[in-house]
């Protein structure tokens, strides 16, 4: 068994990012879209950690700490909005949330 190289990590990261992106593009449930967004963030942190590990510097790791902190705050706000949205509209389906258009 060969050990994992940087390419593997970047590949995994790109796959995760693509999965997240397509989820955002295609899914209709706000919660799922939101989770896919988080997935994209995590994919980027994975890449950063990998770069940090293989370059032998701490830059990427420091970045990840900031991203995690911001992501936690963002999730708190985002989830709160979604809960409030559901209470107000009884739905979190994206194609039904179009009152600005109509």
């Amino acid at each position: 068994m060969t050990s994992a190289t940087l390419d593997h990590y970047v590949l995994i990261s790109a796959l995760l990012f693509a999965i997240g992106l397509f989820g955002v593009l295609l899914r209709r449930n706000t919660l799922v879209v939101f989770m896919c967004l988080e997935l994209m963030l995590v994919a980027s942190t994975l890449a950063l950690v990998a770069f940090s590990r293989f370059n032998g510097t701490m830059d990427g790791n420091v970045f990840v700490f900031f991203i995690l902190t911001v992501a936690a705050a963002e999730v708190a706000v985002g989830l709160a909005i979604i809960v409030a949205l559901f209470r107000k509209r009884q739905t979190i389906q994206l194609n039904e949330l179009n009152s600005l258009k109509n």
Partner: protein
Amino acid sequence: MTMLSHAIFVLILPLVSAAIIALFLRRSGGAAAAVSTLTAAAIAVISVILALHNERFTASTEWMRLGGLVISLGFKFDDLAALMLVIVGIVGLCVHVFSLGYMHDDPAKARYFGGLSIFMFSMLGIVFADNLFMMFIFWELVGFSSYVLINHWHEKQSASDASKKAFIANRVGDFGFLLGIVMCYWLNGTVSLTELAAKGEAHTLVFSTLIPLFLFCGAVGKSAQLPLHVWLPDAMEGPTPVSALIHAATMVAAGIYMLCRINVLMVPAALDVIMWTGTATALYAALCAITQSDIKKVLAYSTLSQLGFMVAAFGLGSLSSTHLHGTEAHTVVIAAGVGAAMFHLTTHAFFKALMFLGSGSVIHGCHHEQDIFKMGGLRTRMPLTFWTFTIGVAAIIGFPYLAGFFSKDAILYLAFEKNSAVFALLALTAVLTSLYMVRLWKLTFLGTPRSDHASHAHEGGLTLTLPLVFLAVLSLVAGYTAFYPNVFSGVFEHIPEAHGSDHTIIFITSLGVMAVGASIGYFFYKSTPTDTLADKVPGLFAALSAFRNAFDGAYGYYVAKIQQRFALFVNFFEQIFLAGLIVRGLAGFVGLCGLGARALHVGNLNAYVYWFLFGLVALWLFATGVL
């Protein structure tokens, strides 16, 4: 108080009066009339004090500075200004007093007297102005007050048309005036009359034929010379006292006054133009006056004709002022023109104001009948008006030893010395002047009444007759230069006077033309309800009428057929290019963009993510230099 503060006071006073009337007295005509008339009385008194006090001064203060251009407001009070000031003050007071009676029952009395006050302010501004910019400002204000007062009875279509015509005709002339001021500033670096005079004495003045000609355009408009004279006869739609003050004695004379102010800028070629313009106007207007049946229109054309005399006198006097012949002869000759023009302006102001107020008295007595063929026999019914009007007529036709006799002789003598063609034409004009004035006088006052209004005519009150008597006295004595206090010598010492055989020739000519014209007027015209000339020589009458209407016809044709078509043509392009292509086109393009952008707004979050992605890709392509 110094004389300068007197001058400032006399200038500001009518403005204050007008402001008070406009702000507080709009509904109370009686109070407005009192305020305005008291102001006029104060102006008359202070004017006389200022003139008699032998102090002449100049003073100016900077008003605004635009780069290197300094516009200042100031006073230039010399003998010329003093004379003009006294004329404006005295005639102004007479007209105010007359208006008290004439406009007594007018519903818009406050507006009328406010207009008179603002006119007095504007006119005094012209008199005092020490530079051309300031003169231009007050020049325009005078035009405005003239517009307001002609338009006093604005519910009458003819009055409102006449006021617009007067304003527009004056604008044409004023544009030339403005060009002249700009050009004078450009070439000489100053428009101050004092500095220009100083430069003239120091021989550093830059001469150009165009400067005096452009400035003369202003006089052509304001003093109603050919070809911008058309507004003055129509301006008779205004109340009669206004015609007396503005359109006979003062405002229309402002053009002559302005010419005298700028005579240092004159060059021979420009003076030739001025002389011939004046002569042509004098003759043309006299011919027009013969066929008029409206008492005020006869006087209006007579005013035009007399203004033509003054302009011709100004142009004549300076005729031989070539800059080749040394300075001594140059100044003397120019001053002769100024002297003759200002002398005639003075006497004319008195006797023409007298006749206009007399016609006002007649119109008032005949219940606003203005047709002289419906008058007649007023001699016994309105004796005071008759006698004062007779003095006015005698003065204008040059009856010996009355005001007009001396001033007209001065002009005729000047013409006799300088240019025999002009002399002949002016003498012919003098014949016509006596003809139409005697015709007017006979039809109005002699014979028997030809309408009910005339047979029930009556003399007006004291406010109507007192100014007539006062002006009649002035018309009797104003021709004697000895009558004037010595303070006007700066003007009057330049009046040309004939001596020896010249004196005899001028005297005989003057008497002859007066006698011939007056006899034709007296014996040819019969006291009938129709024009004797139209009855006996209809061809001549029709020709004169057509001649009179030629200018109005030409302007009408120009406006309706040429200007209007050109305007339509330009309007077409405006519609297509400006309004169509540029305004509508730009708006349409932006609207189209908006339509496209609106299509992107689908209301679906997923779609927005796609746009976001495309945007990101575009940004990336741009950043990498692919795009």
